[in-house]
């Protein structure tokens, strides 16, 4: 499979969205108007860099920035 590449600008675009809410990848691809494979790659790189993270209640999974997730977790823990 061909290596997926992307620009810094595209990465920024994704990151911007990730700080707003928890996303499903296809949604994120739609709103950023980027290819799904590209979005996946960007998100995984952001995760590996410790900037973004996955979030899941068990059945389905989402992605967002670490910061957003931590806040969400706090809210959930408090009920």
């Amino acid at each position, binding site marked *: 499979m061909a290596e997926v590449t992307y620009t810094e600008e595209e990465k920024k675009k994704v990151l911007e969205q990730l700080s707003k*809410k928890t996303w499903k990848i296809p949604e994120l691809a739609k709103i950023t108007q980027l290819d799904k494979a590209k979005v996946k790659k960007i998100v995984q790189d952001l995760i590996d860099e410790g900037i973004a993270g996955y979030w899941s209640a068990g059945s389905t999974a989402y992605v967002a920035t670490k910061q957003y997730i931590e806040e969400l977790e706090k*809210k*959930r823990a408090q*009920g």
Partner: protein
Amino acid sequence: MVKTDFGPPKYDLMLHPVIKKNYGKWKFHEVVKPGVIRRVAESGDEIYVVRFGSPRLLSVYTIRELCDIADKYSDGYLRWTSRNNVEFFVTSKEKVDALIKEVEEKIGFPCGGTWDAVTGKYGLSNIVHTQGWIHCHTPAIDASGIVKAVMDELYEYFIDHKLPAMCRISLACCANMCGAVHASDIAIVGIHRTPPLPDDDAIRRTCEIPSTVAACPTGALKPDMKAKTIKVDVEKCMYCGNCYTMCPGMPLFDPENDGAAIMVGGKISDARRMPELSKVVVPWVPNEPPRWPTLVKYIKQILETWANNARKHERLIEWVDRIGWERFFELTGLEFTDHLIDDYRITPYIYGELRTSTQFRW
């Protein structure tokens, strides 16, 4: 950096030497007595597999005790079955009874849970089950407690081979059916019976409204854009809890009205008859902790009615195939109500046409 993606230990690291040696070269097996299976390899080697019931929820201290016993009798190897029973491997017949004695005395796990198609005498195995009030956020019933209560009552069937055919009992604490009760001879499934009561505050704080609305299979939900909340059309709601899974602001728990439905007639193996989904035969039994007497009574009644009437090798659905659902309800004394008539229009009944079996001709 932390090591990731290294996967589970490779299976062959943890096989008993006799198993490793005879891997793929087993000749036959023989059920010596309930709980004890003798396996003979082409090489002439033999091994006794000894099975014990377990509550599934295990303390690390119990696991260590099991390890001690395995070190003593089983050369340091043991396994679990797909129905949460523990198995030891003994190479000499003489040690079998000592092993059984030690497990029963020290750990309190009963030997049994096997069956023997050869003689046509079947034991009851463990109940596959789920989290319930131990861990999950959507259960309508507890899991472990009901399993304990049912197995106490059916204990004699576990430690002996007294049933005419295989009978798999499963439990799932909600309609998500993590216990895969949708294809079990007898199944207990937790159900809610009240629609969600939207908690506007929680919805606003923690939920994504569009995906919650979209999660409802019957279209019972509508976004209330102005109030930033969700409206429920209670007529359309069948209490599946999907909305609650998506959004904590949609609780539908009602202790008085949650409870269990009982399903029967599922089957997975392709032995004789093609696989079948379980069917609801009791729409609702209330939650009666700690020992759910009504539910336990129903399960026993169904099991024993089947056991007393079925022929050898005739699983519950095969028995019903022969006698008809009319007679099933008559013999078990259960009532057929209109709840039991399918009206879930969303189901892909196309499987009425697509084969669900490996039964082929060439």
